């Protein structure tokens, strides 16, 4: 694949029209925090039938899950799920002993808008593209919207759809995949970013009828507005297991639960269209019905593997986000260079300006190729390895950040002014190197595979 298909071009044209009509006029309100992004996202979902598609996909996945649960319940000597839920430490994601750095799980990014049902996308570059094209188009103007959307659909909903029981899917998943409700995904804590799993302080203490949750989370995308929160905490069963190696459990919380507080949006460098907040839990009582992954634990499935699959989709989404930023910065820079006159001629005539444009084009080609590579691999049914996805994310994030900063530089004083739009994209793009795994964490993932460790 070296270019979009005719159909994909049609999708892009339709989404671009929507973005220009519905998003661009509101970017200032979104960026100043006066307008949460959710209604715009919902408008996009309904305009393009994305909600309907998500609902249909949800019903299929739910039916499959129900059928598989019925098979298991009917099987003789089935795993005693009930017994596992209370005290016996079912773990969604076990904190690795030697892998303390695993956990950019906790990064607030997660732009994978990918549907919760991966199987429906496998072997079909077409539908993977349907996910990435809106990301690219939105990021030309407002990457924050994509982050808000991606965390809700790609992380919160996705985790519930993968780890939850049919009942849990029905209770929380349906409204999240259609974006009727807003989801957040809470791992990162004030004392742990890249070391999210190892350094986690939030605790889940087994009690009669469930657990008592305590702790606080920070940098949580959608935190201030979320209706549904996937919350990670370490099992504190009083057995004296060192904190670092305690199992990590995940729970689903609802807005307004007793003892559960959601902060107002935090002030950030950029990405203002994506509300970020803190969560505080003090003695929040939850029943076993809110624990995710009990079944996975009983069937011996590896929680870490599922987390890694999340990373891959998340990082591919980030390449698409980067492409949107780069495309827009390049287009604006070309336009500016041709029209800005200095010493009686357009600055496009100056070779130092041409160098900037050429480097932007190289970055655009490279990132576009990475996006195409991801789509091709999806079509071939061979998902990227974690290291490959990390390489893609590392390069794309750096490229987006550099291109956006160079666009500011190319426009000089004008570029530094909000009116010319590129300064916002530059501030927004910086976070690409930080969330969904910092650049430095990506390096370790790449190196680990290269060195066979």
């Amino acid at each position, binding site marked *: 694949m070296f270019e979009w298909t005719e159909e994909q071009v049609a999708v892009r044209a*339709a989404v671009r029209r929507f973005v220009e009509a519905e998003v661009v006029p509101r970017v200032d309100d979104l960026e100043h925090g006066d307008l949460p992004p959710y209604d715009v996202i919902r408008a996009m979902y309904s305009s393009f039938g994305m909600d309907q*598609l998500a609902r249909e996909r949800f019903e299929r996945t739910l039916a499959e899950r129900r059928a598989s649960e019925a098979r298991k319940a009917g099987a003789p000597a089935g795993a005693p799920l009930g017994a596992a839920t209370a005290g016996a430490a079912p773990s969604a994601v076990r904190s690795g002993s030697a892998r303390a750095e695993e956990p950019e799980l906790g990064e607030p990014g997660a732009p994978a808008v990918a549907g919760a049902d991966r199987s429906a996308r496998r072997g079909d570059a077409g539908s993977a593209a349907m996910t990435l094209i809106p990301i690219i188009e939105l990021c030309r103007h407002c990457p924050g919207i994509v982050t808000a959307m991606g965390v809700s659909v790609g992380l919160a909903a996705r985790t519930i759809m993968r780890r939850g029981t049919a009942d849990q899917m029905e209770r929380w998943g349906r409204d999240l995949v259609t974006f009727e409700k807003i989801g957040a995904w809470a791992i990162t804590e004030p004392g742990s970013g890249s070391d999210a799993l190892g350094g986690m302080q939030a605790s889940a203490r087994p009690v009669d009828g469930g657990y008592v949750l305590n702790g606080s989370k920070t940098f949580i995308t959608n935190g201030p507005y979320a209706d549904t929160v996937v919350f990670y905490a370490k099992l504190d069963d009083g057995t004296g297991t060192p904190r670092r190696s305690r199992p990590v459990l995940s729970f689903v919380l609802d807005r307004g639960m007793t003892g559960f507080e959601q902060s107002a949006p935090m002030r950030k460098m950029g990405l203002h269209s994506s509300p970020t907040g803190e969560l505080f839990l003090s003695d929040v009582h939850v029943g076993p019905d809110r624990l995710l992954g009990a079944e996975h634990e009983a069937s011996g499935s590896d929680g870490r593997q599922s987390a890694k699959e999340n990373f891959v989709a998340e990082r591919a989404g980030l390449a698409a986000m980067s492409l949107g930023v780069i495309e827009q910065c390049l287009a604006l820079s070309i336009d500016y260079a041709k029209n800005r006159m200095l010493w009686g001629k357009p600055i496009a005539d100056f070779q130092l300006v041409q160098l900037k444009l050429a480097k932007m084009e190289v970055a655009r080609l490279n990132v576009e190729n990475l996006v195409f590579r991801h789509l091709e691999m999806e079509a071939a049914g061979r998902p990227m390895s974690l290291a490959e996805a990390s390489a893609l994310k590392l390069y794309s994030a750096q490229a987006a950040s550099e291109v956006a900063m160079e666009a500011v530089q190319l426009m000089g004083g004008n570029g530094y002014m909000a009116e010319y739009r590129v300064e916002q994209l530059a501030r927004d793009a910086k976070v690409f190197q930080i969330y969904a795994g910092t650049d430095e964490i990506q390096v370790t993932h790449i190196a680990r595979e290269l060195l066979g460790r």
Partner: protein
Amino acid sequence: MNVVVCVKQIPDPAAPGALDPQSHTLVREGKLILDDSDAYGVEMGLQLAGDAGEVTLVSMAPNQEVSGVRTALAMGAAKAIVVSDPALKGSDALSTAKVLAKAIERVGADLILAATESTDGYTGTTPVQVAELLGLPSVTFAKKVTVSDGKVRVERQTEAGFDEVECPMPCLVTVTAGVVEPRYPSFKGIMAAKSKPVDQLTVADLGLDASSVGAAGARQEITSVAAAEARGGGDIVVDEGDAHERIVQFLEQLKLV
């Protein structure tokens, strides 16, 4: 109810256009898009056709181009007839109307919708000529269209306000950009559009004589083309305490107050 919507595929207005130096007509090679002004007719057609009926698109295009038609199919139209023929090169509005009318005859529509004018040619005469050739009544400049009891009721935009017009069906109605808000094609619709039937016909298929259409049949000729006058610099008024009066004078001149 079955609705025919006449649609035109035009060069992307975002790309710089070019004129053929000989014929002085717009160069229409390569990819064409659905004329924005046609999206309103398509939307109106989809709403009026309802679940029981369907919308058929009728279009004339050079080079068998269909990408613009696919956009309207993605919005929900059921099928399309696209007439492409080298003999159609140089067609004027009447030639186009002859072709569209012949194509529409094959469908059997209760209602025919068209835009008031195209965004590339702006002659604004083709739809009414189509109605005349089909022997049907026509109503132009609709800002609202409703259908009941085999009649179409139209609020017809005028300079002063609007007229309420009633017309028996079948008939042809041209719609303005205010008539309805066009939907975005859904992703599903875009995927489905690829497999919807597009009937590609030639002039001969329609039973038309090639000499009656295209440059051969044209009754109009563009003799010359001049660039639009460059915009003037405007007047700069320095406020010496009387700017408000100058502004009122200016607006009075334009008959705006």
